[in-house]
Protein backbone atom coordinates (compact mmCIF):
# COMPACT_ATOMS: atom_id res chain seq x y z
CA UNK A 1 0.00 0.00 0.00
CA UNK A 2 1.61 3.21 -1.11
CA UNK A 3 5.00 1.53 -1.36
CA UNK A 4 5.59 2.74 -4.91
CA UNK A 5 3.83 6.08 -4.47
CA UNK A 6 6.88 8.32 -4.90
CA UNK A 7 8.94 6.08 -7.20
CA UNK A 8 5.76 5.70 -9.26
CA UNK A 9 5.39 9.47 -9.61
CA UNK A 10 9.03 9.73 -10.74
CA UNK A 11 8.62 6.91 -13.26
CA UNK A 12 5.37 8.40 -14.56
CA UNK A 13 7.04 11.79 -14.99
CA UNK A 14 9.98 10.27 -16.85
CA UNK A 15 7.74 8.43 -19.32
CA UNK A 16 5.47 11.48 -19.72
CA UNK A 17 8.50 13.63 -20.58
CA UNK A 18 9.80 11.03 -23.03
CA UNK A 19 6.35 10.77 -24.62
CA UNK A 20 6.20 14.46 -25.46
CA UNK A 21 9.56 14.07 -27.20
CA UNK A 22 12.05 15.41 -24.66
CA UNK A 23 15.58 14.04 -25.19
CA UNK A 24 16.45 11.32 -22.58
CA UNK A 25 19.29 13.30 -20.98
CA UNK A 26 17.15 16.42 -20.55
CA UNK A 27 14.18 14.51 -19.13
CA UNK A 28 16.51 12.72 -16.70
CA UNK A 29 17.81 16.14 -15.65
CA UNK A 30 14.29 17.54 -15.18
CA UNK A 31 13.27 14.55 -13.07
CA UNK A 32 16.37 14.99 -10.90
CA UNK A 33 15.62 18.70 -10.49
CA UNK A 34 12.04 17.95 -9.43
CA UNK A 35 13.29 15.35 -6.94
CA UNK A 36 15.73 17.80 -5.36
CA UNK A 37 13.11 20.54 -5.30
CA UNK A 38 10.67 18.17 -3.59
CA UNK A 39 13.30 17.37 -0.95
CA UNK A 40 14.04 21.06 -0.35
CA UNK A 41 10.34 21.91 0.01
CA UNK A 42 9.75 18.91 2.26
CA UNK A 43 12.71 19.75 4.51
CA UNK A 44 11.70 23.41 4.83
CA UNK A 45 8.14 22.53 5.79
CA UNK A 46 9.37 19.78 8.06
CA UNK A 47 11.60 22.25 9.92
CA UNK A 48 8.52 24.35 10.71
CA UNK A 49 6.79 21.24 12.04
CA UNK A 50 9.86 20.33 14.13
CA UNK A 51 9.87 23.73 15.86
CA UNK A 52 6.20 23.18 16.73
CA UNK A 53 6.95 19.63 17.89
CA UNK A 54 9.80 20.86 20.08
CA UNK A 55 7.56 23.40 21.77
CA UNK A 56 4.83 20.83 22.35
CA UNK A 57 7.25 18.19 23.70
CA UNK A 58 8.86 20.78 25.95
CA UNK A 59 5.46 21.90 27.18
CA UNK A 60 4.31 18.39 28.05
CA UNK A 61 7.57 17.65 29.85
CA UNK A 62 7.09 20.84 31.89
CA UNK A 63 3.38 20.11 32.55
CA UNK A 64 2.18 22.89 30.26
CA UNK A 65 0.00 22.79 27.17
CA UNK A 66 2.18 24.68 24.74
CA UNK A 67 1.04 26.61 21.66
CA UNK A 68 -2.67 25.96 21.08
CA UNK A 69 -4.18 29.17 19.70
CA UNK A 70 -3.06 29.63 16.07
CA UNK A 71 -4.68 27.04 13.85
CA UNK A 72 -5.99 23.65 14.98
CA UNK A 73 -4.02 22.49 18.05
CA UNK A 74 -1.67 25.43 17.49
CA UNK A 75 -0.30 23.84 14.33
CA UNK A 76 0.11 27.16 12.53
CA UNK A 77 2.04 28.78 15.38
CA UNK A 78 5.46 28.44 13.71
CA UNK A 79 4.11 29.67 10.39
CA UNK A 80 2.83 32.77 12.18
CA UNK A 81 6.18 33.18 13.94
CA UNK A 82 8.12 32.98 10.69
CA UNK A 83 5.77 35.48 9.02
CA UNK A 84 6.31 37.81 11.96
CA UNK A 85 10.09 37.45 11.76
CA UNK A 86 9.99 38.07 7.99
CA UNK A 87 8.39 41.44 8.69
CA UNK A 88 11.03 42.49 11.17
CA UNK A 89 14.07 44.59 10.42
CA UNK A 90 17.42 42.85 10.08
CA UNK A 91 19.57 45.10 12.23
CA UNK A 92 23.17 45.52 11.05
CA UNK A 93 25.26 46.98 13.90
CA UNK A 94 27.78 49.67 12.99
CA UNK A 95 31.18 47.94 13.06
CA UNK A 96 30.22 44.48 11.79
CA UNK A 97 31.89 42.97 8.76
CA UNK A 98 28.82 43.59 6.63
CA UNK A 99 29.17 41.08 3.78
CA UNK A 100 30.33 38.19 5.97
CA UNK A 101 27.67 39.08 8.55
CA UNK A 102 24.86 38.89 6.01
CA UNK A 103 26.28 35.95 4.03
CA UNK A 104 26.46 33.61 7.03
CA UNK A 105 22.68 33.19 7.62
CA UNK A 106 22.21 32.71 3.87
CA UNK A 107 24.84 29.99 3.67
CA UNK A 108 23.90 28.18 6.86
CA UNK A 109 21.18 26.15 5.12
CA UNK A 110 23.47 24.94 2.32
CA UNK A 111 25.31 22.05 4.06
CA UNK A 112 22.18 20.31 5.46
CA UNK A 113 20.34 20.75 2.15
CA UNK A 114 23.27 19.25 0.27
CA UNK A 115 23.37 16.32 2.69
CA UNK A 116 19.65 15.60 2.12
CA UNK A 117 20.34 15.03 -1.59
CA UNK A 118 21.73 11.52 -0.95
CA UNK A 119 19.41 10.39 1.87
CA UNK A 120 17.28 7.41 0.78
CA UNK A 121 13.83 8.33 2.08
CA UNK A 122 12.48 4.91 1.15
CA UNK A 123 13.27 1.88 -0.99
CA UNK A 124 14.92 3.35 -4.10
CA UNK A 125 14.00 6.88 -3.06
CA UNK A 126 17.42 8.53 -2.84
CA UNK A 127 17.31 11.65 -5.06
CA UNK A 128 20.97 11.12 -6.01
CA UNK A 129 22.66 7.73 -5.87
CA UNK A 130 26.30 8.02 -4.91
CA UNK A 131 28.96 5.38 -4.39
CA UNK A 132 30.53 7.29 -1.55
CA UNK A 133 27.31 8.56 0.03
CA UNK A 134 28.43 8.41 3.66
CA UNK A 135 31.63 10.20 2.89
CA UNK A 136 29.80 12.88 0.94
CA UNK A 137 27.48 13.62 3.86
CA UNK A 138 30.42 13.90 6.26
CA UNK A 139 32.28 16.18 3.85
CA UNK A 140 29.46 18.66 3.34
CA UNK A 141 28.53 18.58 7.04
CA UNK A 142 32.08 19.61 7.93
CA UNK A 143 31.50 22.90 6.11
CA UNK A 144 28.91 23.99 8.71
CA UNK A 145 31.62 24.88 11.23
CA UNK A 146 33.07 27.61 9.05
CA UNK A 147 29.65 29.16 8.41
CA UNK A 148 28.71 29.36 12.11
CA UNK A 149 32.12 30.87 12.78
CA UNK A 150 31.56 33.46 10.02
CA UNK A 151 28.47 34.67 11.88
CA UNK A 152 30.23 34.70 15.24
CA UNK A 153 33.33 36.49 14.05
CA UNK A 154 31.74 39.12 11.85
CA UNK A 155 29.28 40.32 14.51
CA UNK A 156 31.98 42.37 16.28
CA UNK A 157 30.64 41.40 19.65
CA UNK A 158 32.41 39.68 22.54
CA UNK A 159 29.64 37.17 23.13
CA UNK A 160 29.48 36.31 19.45
CA UNK A 161 33.25 35.89 19.29
CA UNK A 162 33.33 33.57 22.30
CA UNK A 163 30.40 31.69 20.79
CA UNK A 164 32.21 31.42 17.46
CA UNK A 165 35.30 30.10 19.18
CA UNK A 166 33.21 27.53 21.01
CA UNK A 167 31.53 26.44 17.77
CA UNK A 168 34.90 25.76 16.17
CA UNK A 169 36.39 23.97 19.19
CA UNK A 170 33.29 21.88 19.87
CA UNK A 171 32.46 20.87 16.33
CA UNK A 172 36.05 19.93 15.51
CA UNK A 173 36.43 17.87 18.69
CA UNK A 174 33.18 15.97 18.24
CA UNK A 175 33.52 15.43 14.51
CA UNK A 176 36.35 13.01 15.21
CA UNK A 177 34.44 10.47 17.36
CA UNK A 178 31.44 10.88 15.04
CA UNK A 179 33.45 9.82 11.99
CA UNK A 180 35.30 7.08 13.88
CA UNK A 181 31.99 5.65 15.16
CA UNK A 182 30.60 5.47 11.61
CA UNK A 183 33.81 3.72 10.54
CA UNK A 184 32.79 0.64 12.57
CA UNK A 185 29.60 0.33 10.51
CA UNK A 186 31.48 0.90 7.25
CA UNK A 187 33.90 -1.89 8.22
CA UNK A 188 31.02 -4.32 8.82
CA UNK A 189 29.13 -3.35 5.66
CA UNK A 190 32.29 -3.07 3.55
CA UNK A 191 30.92 -0.16 1.51
CA UNK A 192 30.39 3.60 1.57
CA UNK A 193 27.23 3.36 -0.54
CA UNK A 194 24.20 4.29 1.57
CA UNK A 195 21.86 1.89 -0.22
CA UNK A 196 24.24 -1.03 0.24
CA UNK A 197 24.64 -0.21 3.93
CA UNK A 198 20.87 -0.29 4.39
CA UNK A 199 20.64 -3.59 2.50
CA UNK A 200 23.44 -5.07 4.63
CA UNK A 201 21.11 -4.71 7.64
CA UNK A 202 18.46 -7.12 6.33
CA UNK A 203 19.55 -9.80 8.83
CA UNK A 204 20.39 -7.66 11.83
CA UNK A 205 20.40 -3.90 12.37
CA UNK A 206 23.82 -2.47 13.04
CA UNK A 207 22.62 -1.00 16.32
CA UNK A 208 22.86 -4.56 17.69
CA UNK A 209 26.20 -5.30 16.02
CA UNK A 210 27.69 -1.90 16.97
CA UNK A 211 25.91 -0.73 20.14
CA UNK A 212 28.90 1.28 21.36
CA UNK A 213 29.29 3.03 18.01
CA UNK A 214 25.57 3.91 18.09
CA UNK A 215 25.89 5.55 21.52
CA UNK A 216 29.05 7.43 20.48
CA UNK A 217 27.36 8.57 17.28
CA UNK A 218 24.27 9.82 19.11
CA UNK A 219 26.34 11.72 21.70
CA UNK A 220 28.65 13.27 19.14
CA UNK A 221 25.69 13.98 16.86
CA UNK A 222 23.80 15.89 19.56
CA UNK A 223 26.98 17.86 20.14
CA UNK A 224 27.43 18.57 16.42
CA UNK A 225 23.99 20.18 16.24
CA UNK A 226 24.68 22.17 19.44
CA UNK A 227 21.79 20.93 21.54
CA UNK A 228 21.44 20.44 25.27
CA UNK A 229 23.45 19.06 27.09
CA UNK A 230 26.09 20.27 24.61
CA UNK A 231 24.69 23.69 23.71
CA UNK A 232 27.66 25.62 25.08
CA UNK A 233 27.72 27.48 21.77
CA UNK A 234 24.54 29.35 22.60
CA UNK A 235 24.54 28.94 26.37
CA UNK A 236 22.18 31.82 27.08
CA UNK A 237 23.17 32.15 30.73
CA UNK A 238 26.81 32.79 29.77
CA UNK A 239 27.04 34.23 26.28
CA UNK A 240 23.45 35.29 25.43
CA UNK A 241 23.04 33.48 22.12
CA UNK A 242 26.62 32.88 21.05
CA UNK A 243 27.19 33.53 17.34
CA UNK A 244 23.56 34.57 16.85
CA UNK A 245 23.60 37.35 19.47
CA UNK A 246 23.52 40.29 17.04
CA UNK A 247 21.14 38.78 14.52
CA UNK A 248 17.52 39.80 14.34
CA UNK A 249 14.47 39.05 12.23
CA UNK A 250 14.73 36.44 9.51
CA UNK A 251 18.54 36.28 9.75
CA UNK A 252 18.16 34.93 13.28
CA UNK A 253 15.35 32.61 12.21
CA UNK A 254 17.57 31.10 9.50
CA UNK A 255 20.05 29.98 12.15
CA UNK A 256 17.30 28.52 14.28
CA UNK A 257 15.65 26.70 11.40
CA UNK A 258 19.05 25.42 10.22
CA UNK A 259 19.59 23.89 13.64
CA UNK A 260 16.49 21.76 13.09
CA UNK A 261 17.56 20.85 9.56
CA UNK A 262 20.93 19.74 10.95
CA UNK A 263 19.18 17.71 13.63
CA UNK A 264 17.19 16.02 10.87
CA UNK A 265 20.43 15.15 9.04
CA UNK A 266 21.90 13.57 12.19
CA UNK A 267 18.71 11.59 12.81
CA UNK A 268 18.53 10.43 9.18
CA UNK A 269 22.16 9.30 9.27
CA UNK A 270 21.64 7.43 12.55
CA UNK A 271 18.59 5.72 11.03
CA UNK A 272 20.49 4.70 7.90
CA UNK A 273 23.66 3.55 9.63
CA UNK A 274 22.25 1.85 12.72
CA UNK A 275 18.48 1.39 12.55
CA UNK A 276 18.15 -0.27 9.17
CA UNK A 277 17.08 2.81 7.17
CA UNK A 278 13.84 2.11 5.32
CA UNK A 279 13.79 -1.63 6.17
CA UNK A 280 10.70 -2.77 8.03
CA UNK A 281 11.38 -4.47 11.40
CA UNK A 282 10.15 -8.09 11.83
CA UNK A 283 9.09 -8.13 8.19
CA UNK A 284 6.16 -5.80 8.90
CA UNK A 285 5.87 -4.64 5.33
CA UNK A 286 2.23 -3.62 5.62
CA UNK A 287 3.54 -0.05 6.01
CA UNK A 288 5.49 1.39 3.04
CA UNK A 289 9.26 1.67 3.38
CA UNK A 290 9.31 5.48 3.45
CA UNK A 291 6.82 5.39 6.30
CA UNK A 292 9.17 3.20 8.34
CA UNK A 293 12.01 5.60 7.61
CA UNK A 294 10.03 8.52 8.99
CA UNK A 295 8.90 6.58 12.06
CA UNK A 296 12.54 5.86 12.93
CA UNK A 297 13.73 9.39 12.20
CA UNK A 298 10.99 10.96 14.27
CA UNK A 299 11.59 8.53 17.14
CA UNK A 300 15.22 9.68 17.20
CA UNK A 301 14.24 13.34 16.98
CA UNK A 302 11.83 12.83 19.86
CA UNK A 303 14.72 11.28 21.81
CA UNK A 304 16.84 14.38 21.13
CA UNK A 305 14.03 16.63 22.39
CA UNK A 306 13.46 14.45 25.41
CA UNK A 307 17.18 14.70 26.30
CA UNK A 308 17.12 18.45 25.75
CA UNK A 309 14.33 19.08 28.21
CA UNK A 310 15.64 16.60 30.80
CA UNK A 311 19.34 17.29 31.28
CA UNK A 312 21.16 20.47 32.34
CA UNK A 313 23.97 21.97 30.27
CA UNK A 314 27.51 20.72 30.97
CA UNK A 315 30.47 23.05 31.59
CA UNK A 316 32.80 24.01 28.76
CA UNK A 317 35.85 22.24 30.25
CA UNK A 318 33.75 19.12 30.86
CA UNK A 319 32.68 19.26 27.23
CA UNK A 320 36.21 19.18 25.84
CA UNK A 321 37.34 16.66 28.44
CA UNK A 322 34.46 14.33 27.66
CA UNK A 323 35.10 14.53 23.94
CA UNK A 324 38.83 13.90 24.03
CA UNK A 325 39.20 11.65 27.07
CA UNK A 326 36.11 9.49 26.74
CA UNK A 327 34.61 9.53 23.26
CA UNK A 328 37.79 9.48 21.14
CA UNK A 329 39.47 6.58 23.04
CA UNK A 330 36.19 4.65 23.08
CA UNK A 331 35.67 5.07 19.36
CA UNK A 332 39.26 3.99 18.65
CA UNK A 333 38.74 0.93 20.86
CA UNK A 334 35.50 0.21 19.00
CA UNK A 335 37.31 0.16 15.65
CA UNK A 336 39.99 -2.15 17.07
CA UNK A 337 37.47 -4.56 18.57
CA UNK A 338 35.40 -4.53 15.37
CA UNK A 339 38.47 -5.36 13.27
CA UNK A 340 39.60 -8.19 15.53
CA UNK A 341 36.03 -9.42 15.93
CA UNK A 342 35.49 -9.67 12.18
CA UNK A 343 38.54 -11.93 11.86
CA UNK A 344 37.57 -14.11 14.81
CA UNK A 345 34.08 -14.39 13.34
CA UNK A 346 35.49 -15.53 10.01
CA UNK A 347 38.05 -17.87 11.64
CA UNK A 348 35.45 -19.84 13.56
CA UNK A 349 33.27 -19.81 10.45
CA UNK A 350 30.11 -19.09 12.39
Amino acid at each position, binding site marked *: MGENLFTGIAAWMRTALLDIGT*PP*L*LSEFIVLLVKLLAVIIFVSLNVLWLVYMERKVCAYIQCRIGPNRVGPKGLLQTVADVLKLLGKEIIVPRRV*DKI*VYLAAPLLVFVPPMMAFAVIPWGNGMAPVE*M*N*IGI*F*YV*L*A*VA*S*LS*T*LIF*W*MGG*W*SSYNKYS*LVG*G*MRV*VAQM*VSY*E*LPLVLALLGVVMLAGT*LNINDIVNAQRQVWFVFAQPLAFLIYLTAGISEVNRVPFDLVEGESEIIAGPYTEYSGMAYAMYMLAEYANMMVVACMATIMFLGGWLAPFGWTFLPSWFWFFIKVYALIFLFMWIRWTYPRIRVDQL*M*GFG*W*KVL*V*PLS*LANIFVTGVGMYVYRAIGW
Partner: protein
Amino acid sequence: MDNGLWLSLAFYLLAATILGSAFLVVLLRNIVHSVLWLAVCFVSLAGLYLTLDADFLAAIQVLIYAGAVCIMVVFGIMLIQRADMKQTNLFNKQTKAAAGVVALVLAVTGYLSAVTQWGNAKTPVPKETVGSLAELMLTKYVIPFEVAAILLLVALVGAIIIAKEVKG
Protein backbone atom coordinates in the same frame (compact mmCIF):
# COMPACT_ATOMS: atom_id res chain seq x y z
CA MET B 1 23.61 18.87 -25.85
CA ASP B 2 27.23 17.89 -26.31
CA ASN B 3 28.67 16.48 -23.09
CA GLY B 4 32.17 17.73 -23.93
CA LEU B 5 30.92 21.29 -24.34
CA TRP B 6 29.35 21.28 -20.87
CA LEU B 7 32.49 19.77 -19.39
CA SER B 8 34.75 22.43 -20.86
CA LEU B 9 32.30 25.13 -19.76
CA ALA B 10 32.42 23.72 -16.22
CA PHE B 11 36.19 23.53 -16.41
CA TYR B 12 36.64 27.17 -17.39
CA LEU B 13 34.11 28.39 -14.81
CA LEU B 14 35.81 26.37 -12.06
CA ALA B 15 39.28 27.40 -13.19
CA ALA B 16 38.27 31.06 -13.15
CA THR B 17 36.78 30.68 -9.65
CA ILE B 18 39.88 28.89 -8.37
CA LEU B 19 42.30 31.46 -9.78
CA GLY B 20 40.14 34.40 -8.74
CA SER B 21 39.69 33.21 -5.17
CA ALA B 22 43.38 32.29 -4.91
CA PHE B 23 44.32 35.82 -5.98
CA LEU B 24 41.93 37.27 -3.40
CA VAL B 25 43.51 35.07 -0.69
CA VAL B 26 46.85 36.73 -1.41
CA LEU B 27 45.69 40.26 -2.11
CA LEU B 28 43.09 40.93 0.61
CA ARG B 29 44.39 42.82 3.64
CA ASN B 30 42.05 41.22 6.15
CA ILE B 31 43.21 37.70 6.96
CA VAL B 32 39.68 36.51 7.81
CA HIS B 33 38.49 37.32 4.31
CA SER B 34 41.55 35.52 2.97
CA VAL B 35 40.57 32.36 4.87
CA LEU B 36 37.01 32.49 3.58
CA TRP B 37 38.25 32.83 -0.01
CA LEU B 38 40.66 29.99 0.66
CA ALA B 39 37.65 27.82 1.53
CA VAL B 40 35.97 28.87 -1.74
CA CYS B 41 39.17 27.97 -3.60
CA PHE B 42 39.30 24.51 -1.98
CA VAL B 43 35.64 23.74 -2.67
CA SER B 44 35.90 24.75 -6.33
CA LEU B 45 39.00 22.58 -6.64
CA ALA B 46 36.79 19.71 -5.42
CA GLY B 47 34.40 20.63 -8.23
CA LEU B 48 37.27 20.25 -10.69
CA TYR B 49 37.91 16.74 -9.37
CA LEU B 50 34.22 15.95 -9.89
CA THR B 51 34.47 16.85 -13.58
CA LEU B 52 37.27 14.25 -13.77
CA ASP B 53 34.97 11.58 -12.20
CA ALA B 54 37.14 11.45 -9.06
CA ASP B 55 34.29 11.69 -6.55
CA PHE B 56 36.21 10.16 -3.63
CA LEU B 57 39.06 12.61 -4.10
CA ALA B 58 36.56 15.49 -4.25
CA ALA B 59 34.98 14.44 -0.94
CA ILE B 60 38.42 14.15 0.64
CA GLN B 61 39.31 17.59 -0.69
CA VAL B 62 36.22 19.16 0.92
CA LEU B 63 36.61 17.22 4.19
CA ILE B 64 40.33 17.77 4.72
CA TYR B 65 41.01 21.15 3.12
CA ALA B 66 37.79 23.14 3.43
CA GLY B 67 36.66 21.37 6.61
CA ALA B 68 39.94 21.01 8.50
CA VAL B 69 42.78 23.14 7.11
CA CYS B 70 40.65 26.29 7.01
CA ILE B 71 39.50 25.57 10.57
CA MET B 72 43.14 25.35 11.68
CA VAL B 73 43.78 28.82 10.21
CA VAL B 74 40.62 30.04 11.95
CA PHE B 75 41.98 28.73 15.26
CA GLY B 76 45.14 30.74 14.67
CA ILE B 77 43.16 33.89 13.92
CA MET B 78 40.97 33.52 17.00
CA LEU B 79 43.97 33.09 19.27
CA ILE B 80 45.74 36.22 18.02
CA GLN B 81 42.68 38.44 17.65
CA ARG B 82 43.61 42.09 17.12
CA ALA B 83 41.61 45.25 17.53
CA ASP B 84 42.18 46.25 13.91
CA MET B 85 41.72 43.33 11.54
CA LYS B 86 42.28 45.49 8.46
CA GLN B 87 46.07 45.21 8.58
CA THR B 88 46.57 41.53 9.30
CA ASN B 89 47.61 40.16 5.93
CA LEU B 90 50.33 42.57 4.84
CA PHE B 91 52.82 42.62 1.99
CA ASN B 92 56.54 42.80 2.50
CA LYS B 93 59.25 44.31 0.33
CA GLN B 94 61.19 41.18 -0.60
CA THR B 95 60.20 41.39 -4.25
CA LYS B 96 63.51 40.05 -5.60
CA ALA B 97 63.41 36.80 -3.63
CA ALA B 98 59.73 36.40 -4.46
CA ALA B 99 60.37 36.97 -8.16
CA GLY B 100 63.12 34.34 -8.10
CA VAL B 101 60.89 31.73 -6.46
CA VAL B 102 57.98 32.46 -8.80
CA ALA B 103 60.24 32.23 -11.84
CA LEU B 104 61.60 28.90 -10.61
CA VAL B 105 58.11 27.47 -10.01
CA LEU B 106 56.91 28.64 -13.43
CA ALA B 107 60.00 27.20 -15.12
CA VAL B 108 59.68 23.80 -13.43
CA THR B 109 55.93 23.43 -14.07
CA GLY B 110 56.33 24.73 -17.62
CA TYR B 111 59.13 22.26 -18.33
CA LEU B 112 57.19 19.36 -16.80
CA SER B 113 54.02 20.12 -18.73
CA ALA B 114 56.06 20.45 -21.92
CA VAL B 115 57.73 17.04 -21.59
CA THR B 116 54.61 15.17 -20.37
CA GLN B 117 52.94 12.94 -22.98
CA TRP B 118 49.37 14.27 -22.88
CA GLY B 119 46.82 11.83 -24.16
CA ASN B 120 43.31 10.57 -23.57
CA ALA B 121 42.79 7.61 -21.27
CA LYS B 122 42.06 4.45 -23.28
CA THR B 123 39.49 3.07 -20.83
CA PRO B 124 36.68 4.99 -19.07
CA VAL B 125 37.07 5.84 -15.39
CA PRO B 126 35.89 2.93 -13.18
CA LYS B 127 32.63 3.60 -11.39
CA GLU B 128 33.97 2.49 -8.03
CA THR B 129 37.29 4.20 -7.30
CA VAL B 130 37.46 3.61 -3.54
CA GLY B 131 38.22 -0.10 -3.85
CA SER B 132 41.07 0.37 -6.32
CA LEU B 133 42.51 3.20 -4.23
CA ALA B 134 42.50 0.95 -1.16
CA GLU B 135 44.14 -1.86 -3.14
CA LEU B 136 46.95 0.41 -4.33
CA MET B 137 47.47 1.78 -0.82
CA LEU B 138 47.84 -1.69 0.67
CA THR B 139 50.05 -3.14 -2.07
CA LYS B 140 52.19 -0.72 -4.06
CA TYR B 141 52.20 2.19 -1.60
CA VAL B 142 51.95 0.19 1.61
CA ILE B 143 54.99 1.71 3.34
CA PRO B 144 54.08 5.41 2.91
CA PHE B 145 50.49 4.53 3.80
CA GLU B 146 51.49 2.75 7.01
CA VAL B 147 53.91 5.52 7.98
CA ALA B 148 51.17 8.13 7.54
CA ALA B 149 48.70 5.95 9.45
CA ILE B 150 51.09 5.51 12.39
CA LEU B 151 51.86 9.25 12.38
CA LEU B 152 48.17 10.11 12.55
CA LEU B 153 47.50 7.53 15.26
CA VAL B 154 50.41 8.89 17.32
CA ALA B 155 49.03 12.41 16.92
CA LEU B 156 45.58 11.25 18.04
CA VAL B 157 46.89 9.36 21.08
CA GLY B 158 49.17 12.30 21.86
CA ALA B 159 46.18 14.65 21.87
CA ILE B 160 44.36 12.36 24.33
CA ILE B 161 47.43 12.22 26.60
CA ILE B 162 47.87 16.01 26.55
CA ALA B 163 44.19 16.41 27.41
CA LYS B 164 44.60 14.04 30.36
CA GLU B 165 47.81 15.71 31.60
CA VAL B 166 46.30 19.19 31.88
CA LYS B 167 43.93 18.05 34.58
CA GLY B 168 46.55 16.47 36.85
